[in-house]
C-alpha cells in the first residue's frame, strides 16, 4: 500500500532538539568531583507517613492515668502527673478518707512537719524534664569545649560506613578474595604506598587522561587522586550486550549499553586486575600483589598499559554497533 501524500510533513523527520546545556562529568574539575554526594539515611529525613487508614490495633485509647490527667486538666483539679508515677503521699494528701485507713507509718509521716531522720543528701532522682537541658540555652554555650562543637551537618566521611573515599571503598572490595576484607585493605594501603614512592609518571599524549587532571608530578603526593585518575581515565563509557537472535537467523545483535560511574569504574578495575595478575613478580613477600597492581596503574597513566587497547576495542565496537541502539528502545 502506498502512503498518501502528506503535505504538512517533510519526507524525513527532522529532529530539532533544543541544545541541552551539557553538564557532563568531564567538565567539572576532578578535584571537585572526587567528593561525591552520598545519600545517607539520617534523622533529617524522617520516614514518610502512610496515607492509608490506620489498622485495628493502631490508634487505641490512652492509658488510664493519661485519661485521668486529661480529665484533671479539664476540671481544673490537676490530675496525676503523666511524666512521673504519683507517690502515695500525694494521693493521701488529696484524699481524706484514705488517710484514715492508711498505715500508721504513713499517717505519722503526714503529721510530722518535717521528716525526723532527714538526710543531708537527696535521694530523689531528677525529673526527666530537668535532666534534659536545652542544648541551645546560654548556660551550655558558655561552657568551654576543648575542641569546639562540630559544624553541622557532619561531613559524609564521618559516617562509619562511608568513611573512606568512594573509589578506595569500591576498589578495596574488588580486591577482596574469599571475603578477607582486612587483607584487601592491607593490599590497598600497600598500593597507595607504592604510588606514593614510585617516581612520577611521564604521560603519553596518545592516551590522554581525563580532563581536569593535575600535572603528573603532583600525583605521588596524592595517591588517592592518582588511583582515581588512572581508573577513571581507562574506564569504558559503555558495554556491548549481545542480544541473541535479534539480528535474525540466530545471529546475535551487538547493542551498546551506556554504563554508570560505578559500573565504569568496576569494569576498569577488573581489567586492571586481569592485566596485573599476568605480570611477573620481581621480588617476593606479601607486597608483590599490591606492587603489581600499582605498577599497572602507573603504566596506565604512562599510556603503556594494555588496558587502553581493551578500552579502545570496546569503544570501537560501540561505534560500529551504534545503529543497533534503537533496538533496545523499540522493545520498550
Amino acid at each position, binding site marked *: 500500500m502506498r502512503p498518501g501524500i502528506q503535505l504538512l510533513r517533510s519526507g524525513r523527520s527532522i529532529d530539532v532538539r533544543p541544545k541541552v546545556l551539557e553538564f557532563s562529568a568531564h567538565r567539572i574539575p576532578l578535584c571537585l568531583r572526587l567528593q561525591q554526594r552520598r545519600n545517607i539515611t539520617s534523622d533529617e529525613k524522617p520516614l514518610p507517613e502512610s496515607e492509608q487508614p490506620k489498622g485495628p490495633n493502631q490508634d487505641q485509647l490512652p492509658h488510664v492515668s493519661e485519661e485521668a490527667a486529661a480529665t484533671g486538666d479539664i476540671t481544673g483539679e490537676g490530675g496525676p502527673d503523666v511524666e512521673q508515677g504519683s507517690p502515695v503521699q500525694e494521693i493521701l494528701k488529696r484524699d481524706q478518707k484514705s488517710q484514715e485507713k492508711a498505715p500508721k507509718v504513713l499517717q505519722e509521716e503526714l503529721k510530722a512537719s518535717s521528716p525526723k531522720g532527714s538526710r543531708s543528701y537527696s535521694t530523689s532522682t531528677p525529673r526527666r524534664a530537668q535532666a534534659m537541658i536545652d542544648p541551645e540555652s546560654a548556660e551550655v554555650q558558655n561552657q568551654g569545649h576543648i575542641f569546639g562543637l562540630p559544624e553541622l551537618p557532619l561531613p559524609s566521611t564521618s559516617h562509619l560506613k562511608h568513611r*573512606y573515599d568512594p573509589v578506595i571503598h569500591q576498589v578495596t572490595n574488588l580486591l577482596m578474595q574469599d571475603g578477607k576484607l582486612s587483607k584487601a*585493605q592491607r593490599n590497598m594501603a600497600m598500593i597507595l604506598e607504592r604510588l606514593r614512592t614510585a617516581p*612520577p609518571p611521564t604521560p603519553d599524549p596518545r592516551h590522554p587522561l581525563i580532563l581536569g587532571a593535575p600535572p603528573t608530578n603532583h600525583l605521588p603526593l596524592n595517591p588517592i587522586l592518582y588511583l582515581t585518575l588512572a581508573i577513571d581515565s581507562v574506564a569504558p563509557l559503555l558495554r556491548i550486550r549481545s542480544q541473541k537472535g535479534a539480528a535474525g537467523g540466530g545471529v546475535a545483535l551487538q547493542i551498546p549499553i551506556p554504563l554508570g560511574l560505578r559500573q565504569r569504574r568496576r569494569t576498569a578495575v577488573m581489567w586492571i586486575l586481569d592485566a596485573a595478575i599476568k605480570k611477573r613478580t620481581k621480588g617476593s613477600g606479601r607486597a608483590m600483589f599490591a606492587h603489581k597492581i600499582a605498577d599497572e596503574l602507573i603504566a596506565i597513566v604512562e599510556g603503556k598499559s594494555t588496558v587502553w587497547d581493551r578500552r579502545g576495542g570496546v569503544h570501537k565496537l560501540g561505534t560500529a554497533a551504534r545503529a543497533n541502539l534503537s533496538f533496545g528502545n523499540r522493545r520498550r
Partner: protein
Amino acid sequence: MVEVNVKGAKKTFTKKKKKLQKVDRGKKPAVGERKALRKRVVLSNTNALEVEGLKDITAQSMIDDSLRGHVLAIPGPVVDQLRAVEAFKVTQGWPLFRRPSMLIRKDTLDMATEIENISLGIGDKTIRRVFVGERGSGKTTMLLQAMTMAFLKDWVVINIPQAQDLILAQTEYGPLPSTTPTLYTQRTYTASLLNAISRANPILQTLQLSQPPAENEIPIPVPPNISLSRLALLGAEDPEIAWPIFELLYRELTLPDRPPLLLCMDGLAHAMRNTHYISNTYQPIHAHQFTIIKWFLDHLSGTSPLPNAGLVLASTSESNSPVVPALKLALGQLEGNSAVRKDPFAKYDERVLGVFEGGGVEVKRMGGLSKEEARGLMEYWALSGVVRQRVDDGFVGEKWCLSGGGCVGELERAVVRMRV
C-alpha cells in the same frame, strides 16, 4: 578418521587438539635476587617534600631539652654507619620521607643524657637495659636512636640486628674445641659482623693493636701496629679465623683508654630458647651455647663488665617473638609487675633466669608519645607532604586517641598509611 560432511549424517569423532600451554620464557630472577628486593632498605623518597628548617642532630644538640617533640634529621655519614650495622628495618617508615629523621621524645633525651654522662665519666659506668612495650611503641627505634647518638659521640657500636638470624640454622656452625658444655661458633655470621663493625666504626682506623697476639691464638701472622679496623677486615675476609679475630678485637677494645662501647641486640626472645641447630647427639642446641649470643648475654647479665663503660641494650619484639615463659617472668619481675607470678605448672629455663639473676638489668617499658610529641611528629609529616589534613588540636587529639594513647607505630598507621 575421515570427516564426512553430508547433510544429515553424523560427523565422525575427531580428536581435539590439546591447547598449547603458555610457557613463560622470560628471564628468571637470579638466586637470592627476589629476597634481596624484599630486604632492600629504602631510606629516601624523592617525591616527598623537603622539610624546610629541618636541623641535623649533633653531639651538642642531642641533650637539648628544648628539642623535645621536634624532629631532627640524621646526618649523612651517620646514616651510612647505621646502614652498615643494619639499624634500619624494612618494616619501618623510612621510604616515605626525603631523608631519615627521628623524633626527639622524652626517652630519647633520657638516653642522650646517659650517653653524655658516660662519655664524661659521670654516674653509672655501664647501663644494661631491656626495652619492652607494645607493638609499634618504638623499641627498635630506641636502639637506632641510641646507636645514632653513640656514633655522634665516637663510641664503638656492635649491633646484632636480629637474634633470630643466629638461631634459625641458616648460617653455618661448628663446635669450639675444648669447651664444656660445648660452645658453637658461627663463622660466616661472625665474619659479616666483623665487616659491619669495621665499616660502621671509622674510629677503629685510629686505634692500633697494642701488642702482637700470642702465637697459638691467631692462625695467621698479624702485622704489629695494625689498625683495629684492618684487623676486623682480616677476620671478615676469612671466616676460618673470624671468631679468634673477634675475640682479639674485643679484648683490644676493652683495654684502658679505648672509647666506650654500645652493644645492641634486637629480638631478644629468640636468643633465649633452643635453636634449630642440632648437636652430634641429635639434640637441639640451646641458644646460649652459641658464642656470639653468649658473648652478648654475658654483657647483659653483667658477667663480663665493660671496663671502658658503655651501654648494653636489648629489645624484645611483639610481632616476631617466640613464647619464652622464663623471659616473660624475669622481665615482668624486674619491671616490678606484681601480677607476674611463677606458674607452678610452667617450665622455666634456668639458663634464661640466670641471665637476670645477677641484678642490674633495667627493664624499660616504652609508652606512648605525649600529645606535644605526637603533634611535632605530625607536623613533620605534614611538611613532608605525606599528611594532607590541617594539623590542629582536634586532629592531633583524634589521632592520638586512635593510636591507643600515642603508640608511634599505630599513629603512623592511622595518619600516614590510612586509606583516606
